C-alpha cells in the first residue's frame, strides 16, 4: 500500500525556528578553537622535544595568533548565549557529564597559557622589549624556568581543546548526525591539520615547511579515513542515522561537503603538498589557505547539518 504521511499541528513559528539554536557563533568558535589547539599542540610538542631551533615558526611565531583567535572564539561563545550576564555560572561548577562544562574549564587553562606563551616569545617580534617592572621580570624568569612543564600541560590541554568540541556534539543522541564517536577524533584531526597549515603559512624555513607538509598529508589521510569510516557507520546504523548521512549523500549538504570540505579542503591541498615535496613549485599560500578554509566550512556544515538531523516519530 502506498502510504502518505502528513504531519501537521506543531505549527509554532516562534518555537520551531528556535530549534536551530546554534548559529554562526558556534561553528566559528569550533574552527578557531580547533586551530588554536592545533598550533599550540605543535608548539608544546617541539618545545618538549627541544627542537625550538628546528621549528622556530611552530614554537615561537605561529602561537602569537592563538590568544587573539581564542579571545574571538570566546566572544563568539558569549554572544551565542541567551542569558549573557550569567555566563560566569559555567565556572561555579564542573560537570563531567557535560562536555560543555569541562570544555569551558579547558579554555580557562589554555587561554592564559597562550598569553604566557606569547609573552615569553615577545622578543621574537620586538627584540628590545623590556618588561620594565621587577615582578614582571620575575614572572618571565619563572615561566621560562618551567617552560617544559608548562608545555606538557599545554600539550595535554590542547588535545582536550581539540577533541572536546567533537565529543560535545557526539554526546547529543537527539541529533543523529552528531551522534557518532568518530566526531571527536575527526575534529581533533581537523584542528591539527589547520594548525599545521597555519604554521606552514608563517614559516620562513624550508625544512620546517617540508616537515609540516608531511605532517599535514598524514593528518589529511587520517581525516579522510575517519570520514569514510563515519559514513560506513551511519549507513550500517539505524534509519535515523541513515537519513542523517543522507544529508551528505544526495541531501542539501552534499555539494558543499564533498566539494568544499573534502575536495578543496583535504584532497587538493594534500596533492599540492605532495607536489611541493616532489620539488614542484607550489606557493605555500594555496594549500595552507585551502586547508584553513576547508576546516572552517567543515565546522559550519557539521553544525548546521547536525541541527537539521533528527529523530523521526
Amino acid at each position, binding site marked *: 500500500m502506498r502510504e502518505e504521511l502528513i504531519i501537521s499541528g*506543531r505549527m509554532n513559528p516562534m518555537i520551531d525556528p528556535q530549534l536551530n539554536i546554534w548559529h554562526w557563533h558556534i561553528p566559528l568558535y569550533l574552527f578557531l578553537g580547533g586551530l588554536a589547539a592545533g598550533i599550540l599542540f605543535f608548539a608544546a610538542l617541539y618545545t618538549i622535544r627541544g627542537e625550538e631551533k628546528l621549528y622556530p615558526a611552530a614554537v615561537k611565531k605561529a602561537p602569537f595568533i592563538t590568544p587573539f583567535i581564542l579571545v574571538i572564539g570566546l566572544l563568539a561563545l558569549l554572544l551565542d548565549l541567551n542569558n549573557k550576564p550569567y555566563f560566569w555560572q559555567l565556572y561555579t561548577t564542573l560537570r563531567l557529564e557535560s562536555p*560543555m562544562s569541562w570544555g569551558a574549564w579547558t579554555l580557562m587553562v589554555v587561554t592564559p597559557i597562550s598569553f604566557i606563551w606569547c609573552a615569553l616569545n615577545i622578543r621574537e617580534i620586538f627584540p628590545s622589549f623590556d618588561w620594565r617592572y621587577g615582578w614582571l621580570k620575575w614572572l618571565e624568569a619563572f615561566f621560562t624556568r618551567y617552560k617544559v612543564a608548562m608545555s606538557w600541560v599545554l600539550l595535554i590541554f590542547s588535545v582536550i581543546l581539540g577533541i572536546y568540541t567533537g565529543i560535545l556534539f557526539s554526546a547529543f543522541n537527539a541529533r543523529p548526525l552528531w551522534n557518532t564517536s568518530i566526531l571527536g577524533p575527526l575534529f581533533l584531526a581537523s584542528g591539527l591539520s589547520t594548525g599545521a597549515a597555519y604554521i606552514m603559512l608563517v614559516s620562513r624555513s624550508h625544512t620546517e615547511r617540508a616537515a609540516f607538509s608531511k605532517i599535514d598529508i598524514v593528518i589529511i589521510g587520517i581525516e579522510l579515513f575517519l570520514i569514510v569510516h563515519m559514513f560506513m557507520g551511519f549507513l550500517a546504523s539505524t534509519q535515523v542515522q541513515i537519513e542523517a548521512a543522507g544529508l551528505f549523500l544526495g541531501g542539501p549538504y552534499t555539494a558543499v561537503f564533498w566539494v568544499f570540505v573534502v575536495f578543496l579542503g583535504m584532497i587538493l591541498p594534500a596533492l599540492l603538498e605532495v607536489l611541493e615535496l616532489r620539488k614542484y613549485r607550489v606557493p605555500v599560500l594555496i594549500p595552507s589557505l585551502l586547508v584553513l578554509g576547508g576546516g572552517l566550512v567543515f565546522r559550519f556544515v557539521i553544525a548546521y547539518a547536525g541541527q537539521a538531523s533528527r529523530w523521526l516519530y
Partner: protein
Amino acid sequence: MRYAMVIDTDKCVGCSDCVVACQTENKVPVGYARDWVVEVTKGTYPHLQMELRSERCNQCENAPCVRCCPTGSSHYSAGGIVLVKPRRCIGCGACITSCPYDARFPHPKGYVDKCTFCDHRIKEGNKPACVEVCPTRCMYFGNIDDPASEVSRLLRQRRYKTLIPEAGTKPHLYFLT
C-alpha cells in the same frame, strides 16, 4: 514517587485547549508554547487514519538535557520532574539541541523554558493546567509508582506507547492507542 501523564489519543480531538491553558497558567510569552498538538495522518485518501497527540516535555528518567547542562541548571525535581533553575541557566542552548522531542525553547528573558508538569499546582494537590481543562478528559496525571493510581490502572488496562523510547530517554508521557 514518579509523576507521569497518560493521554488517550482516541479521545483527543485536537482542540488545543491544553496549549492555551498552559500559556495562561504559566504566563508563557505570547507566541511561545510549552505544549503542542501533533496531528499525524497516515494512508491514502479515502483510507486514512489519524492520530492526535498533545505533546510536551516527556520528563525523561534519563534526560539528555540534564546530562548536557554545563551549569546544573537543568535538574531532576521531586517526582522525577525535569526543571530549569532560571538563575543558573546561561542560555547556551545545549539542552535545546539535546532534546529529541524538541520540548525546550529559549525564553525571551534569556533562560530556557519548558513544561514543568505545573509543579506549582501539583504541590497544592491540583492537576496540571492542561489536564484540568481538557474538554474530552483525555489526559490523566498521577503517580505511576502507586499501583492504585488512575494512571497506573490505565497503563495496566490499555495499550500504550511512548515517543521514541529507542532514544534511551525513558520518557514519562504515555499515549493510549
